């Protein structure tokens, strides 16, 4: 799941997947701005066939939180 999330992030942020580390977050990824955050949200929803709540959308600010939230929503590995 983490690798798939990394691939989605790399695609949305326009960077090589190798640059998305385990500690990737809005603070460490320069391209992670408000617009790309929403692009990331819809891309993750499409990839994992889940629906985030508005509160979850606000909180998806790191790879760890993304993976955690995807697991909570029952996304398939």
């Amino acid at each position, binding site marked *: 799941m983490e690798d798939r999330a990394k691939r989605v992030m790399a695609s949305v942020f326009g960077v090589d997947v190798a640059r998305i580390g385990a500690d990737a977050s809005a603070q460490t990824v320069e391209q992670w701005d408000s*617009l790309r955050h929403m692009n990331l949200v*819809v891309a993750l929803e499409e990839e994992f066939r889940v629906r985030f709540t508005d509160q979850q959308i606000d909180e998806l600010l790191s790879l760890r939180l993304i993976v955690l939230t995807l697991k909570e929503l029952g996304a398939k590995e």
Partner: protein
Amino acid sequence: MILKNVRHRLRLFRQLWLLTWRYDVLVEKAVTVKYVETISFGRKCTLQSGVYVYGSRRGNPVRIGDFVAIGAGGMLLGEGGISIGDYTHFGPRVVVTTQYGDAESDMCQEEAVLKYAPVRMGRGCWIGAGAVIMPGTVLGERCIVAPNSVVFGSWGDAVSLAGSPARRRG
């Protein structure tokens, strides 16, 4: 101050005149076009009343295909570049924007610091009234966007989107 505004009106009139001279476009009342040199239209397009089309000072093309209709009050902000496929129709008050504010910048400046991302829309898309197409959005062919949706991200062909953020409905 009056002279400044008169000059501006004359410049806008010239831009509109150039557009209708060059392209097969039906232009209704109170249409505004800026940076027309970066804008191109296909055959038999319509700009309904109150449409505002902003080309690109940065030279990014705003390409509008054949038989495209932009509904009344629509706005295309094309600084980052826009491509709209043939037969795509917009309802009233649709906004397509390719620019957004840089929230990391000093927001109290005469010129806002903006970021840009192009928008691409395929052939035969229908965009409902009041929808907002955000920078970087890619829509495939024959997509439908429900009224008042806010669209982000990349989507394939024949997708139906609704909501804010817009999600797949079919």
